[in-house]
């Protein structure tokens, strides 16, 4: 019996802390476990007893990379519980600020965290020595996303302007004009990014995923929609717990989310794209075709192209929203608390972020449950690792390690969010 051990204790270029254990016995990969040792912070526990008005500020702190996702899922859940509807330009502004988060988060992942894997660099800074124009153009794109977040939210990390019912302050038309000019440049930069990442070398690898995403009557999904899959899921977000469950496994401080009837599923760009291709503008669909993407992409390594496509969409959508913008008379609609339960589910850059809160009559949180995207993807990541790793079992350790790390980064895992969510070790016996 042959024994080899490879260990990667801290995975790089992911947000948060995790590791991977691969078990190889007699040249066969027998198990792959993603460990998340990000220490738990207990948001769902300390949210109990807090006020509904504080909730958007508190849940933002779950993730510094996608705070808007947490804020949006929370305000929708609060409004759902209190019977409040936010429409018109306030709804449009929510969509606009979410576009800013998609642009900055996707650009960060595509260029700084993921692209170096394909081109053989340890990081974007080293990559910039050979691909300076591409890195600088992408940093400019990321900056425009952050500028949009800062304009509407006050700052890019943990924005302060989101509240139940709308915003504390809404912009005048004149405030949006300078950002529109930057977004026109960002749109061109994003098209350049799609064309650049489409030239990367991609492994010939596909899996038959169950994709899960929101689907809206006429929009590419951000804040609203029904929960659908490419199998038979088509449910109201309030019925999430009837189809999905969280399981607690020993090697992880992240809870694993599974479909009760079928197990692992996939959320995020590949799922949104496959389930909502027809909701993308014609020009974006044409660009996807030019980049070699069909209407459904089952190769997780090519998710980098789909993310770049979604940046183009977010720039175009932001420009459309700004062109149609008229400042609403009030920055928010009144929210009167009442006892009840509310649900919110929105499309974080990494996939659906589902919240449920139960409130006392005065708006105090009685119970909270938050299901972040990366926890939902963890079983799919492990299944990918088994499929990617199996044919490589007899390869040298550094070949296996590199390909497995890349497989994990395909998911843009946000581990800080997922704790309820990694170490790389290969155990060969």
């Amino acid at each position, binding site marked *: 019996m042959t024994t080899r051990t490879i260990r990667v204790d801290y995975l790089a270029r992911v947000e948060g802390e995790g590791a991977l254990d691969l078990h190889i016995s007699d040249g066969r990969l027998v198990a792959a476990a993603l460990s998340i040792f990000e*220490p738990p*912070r*207990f948001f769902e526990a*300390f949210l109990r007893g807090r006020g509904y008005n504080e909730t958007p500020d508190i849940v933002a*702190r779950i993730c*510094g990379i996608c705070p808007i996702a947490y804020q949006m899922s929370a305000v929708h859940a609060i409004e759902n519980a209190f019977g409040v509807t936010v429409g018109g330009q306030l709804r449009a502004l929510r969509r606009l600020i979410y576009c800013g988060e998609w642009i900055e988060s996707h650009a960060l992942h595509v260029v700084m965290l993921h692209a170096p894997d394909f081109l053989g660099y340890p990081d974007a800074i080293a990559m910039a020595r050979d691909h300076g124009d591409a890195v600088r153009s992408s940093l400019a794109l990321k900056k425009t996303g952050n500028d949009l977040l800062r304009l509407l939210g006050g700052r890019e990390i943990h924005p302060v302007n989101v509240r139940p019912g709308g915003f504390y302050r809404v912009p005048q038309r004149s405030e949006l004009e300078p950002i529109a000019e930057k977004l026109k440049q960002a749109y061109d930069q994003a098209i350049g990014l799609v064309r650049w990442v489409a030239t990367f070398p991609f492994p010939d690898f596909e899996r038959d995923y169950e994709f899960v995403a929101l689907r809206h009557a006429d929009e590419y999904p951000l804040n609203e929609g029904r929960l659908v899959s490419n199998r038979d899921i088509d449910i109201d977000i309030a019925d999430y717990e009837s189809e999905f469950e969280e*399981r607690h496994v020993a090697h992880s401080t992240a809870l694993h989310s599974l479909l009760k009837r079928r197990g692992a599923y996939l959320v995020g760009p590949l799922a949104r794209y496959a389930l909502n291709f027809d909701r993308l503008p014609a020009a974006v669909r044409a660009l996807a075709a030019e980049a070699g993407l069909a209407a459904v992409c089952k190769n997780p390594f090519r998710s980098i192209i789909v993310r770049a496509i979604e940046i183009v969409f977010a720039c175009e959508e932001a420009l459309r929203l700004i062109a149609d913008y008229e400042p609403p008379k009030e920055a928010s609609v009144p929210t009167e608390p009442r006892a009840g339960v509310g649900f919110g589910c929105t499309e974080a850059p990494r996939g659906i972020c589902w919240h449920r809160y139960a409130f006392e009559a005065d708006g105090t949180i009685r119970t909270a449950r938050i299901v972040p995207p990366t926890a939902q993807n963890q079983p799919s990541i492990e299944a990918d690792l088994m499929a990617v790793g199996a044919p490589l079992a007899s390869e040298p350790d550094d070949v296996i390690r590199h390909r497995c790390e890349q497989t994990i980064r395909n998911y843009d895992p946000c581990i800080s969010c997922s704790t309820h969510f990694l170490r790389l070790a290969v155990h060969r016996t």
Partner: protein
Amino acid sequence: MDDRRQPRLAVWKFASCDGCQLSLLDCEDELLDLAGTIKIANFLEASSAVEPGPYDLSLVEGSITTEHDAQRIREIRLQSKHLVTIGACATHGGIQALRNFADVREFVAAVYASPEYINTLATSTAISAHVPVDFELQGCPINKTQLLEVISAFLAGRKPAVPAHSVCIECKQRGTVCVMVQGTACLGPVTHAGCGAICPSYRRGCYGCYGPMETPNTAALAREWRALGATRHDIRRVFRSFNAMAEPFLQESAAHDD
């Protein structure tokens, strides 16, 4: 530039949201220049190239919540010429320090089906509770311009120019009309400057995410809040949030316990 003559920077993460280290990656205009001036020797969120210590400057994000992390920060201190905490978690324990006011076993049971799988300390504590810290940069999240100032100052061997006055001064500097005089309760008078007084410029009161200023009069501000209609419960909650364990905020929240 020759790598051997460049100062060596390390960025470390403990219990946190990653937002403060993201502030470094959010320096889109400065990042490539910065990387030409200093050697980013250990920054796992940004690079898989990790060089061993010692480091000239360690930036530490996050609070200590596990025995393993308590040991890890001691090892990092030994490898670091200067150690600077970045953000409310590393400086005061963060929002996750709300466990310090509760029974952590009950918290574990509320979130996890199998509490026996979870290793955690009963408290979330600041880095300074474990090792000597050379400078604490406050904020949830930190201000990236202040972060660049702190990095420049330590590498130049000078004191960082980070004012310790209140958010009120920043409102005056940017010409924002006081929201408190318009009837909106605001923590600005006791909160450390650095954000640029964002909240009042968005027509809401400061909620204290930069933690206490130097010598804050929290009791006087609490009386003003009561006059504006805030309950004791409201006041306890607002001081017991992102910087709950910062001493002046801790005392004021405790003074409003039932």
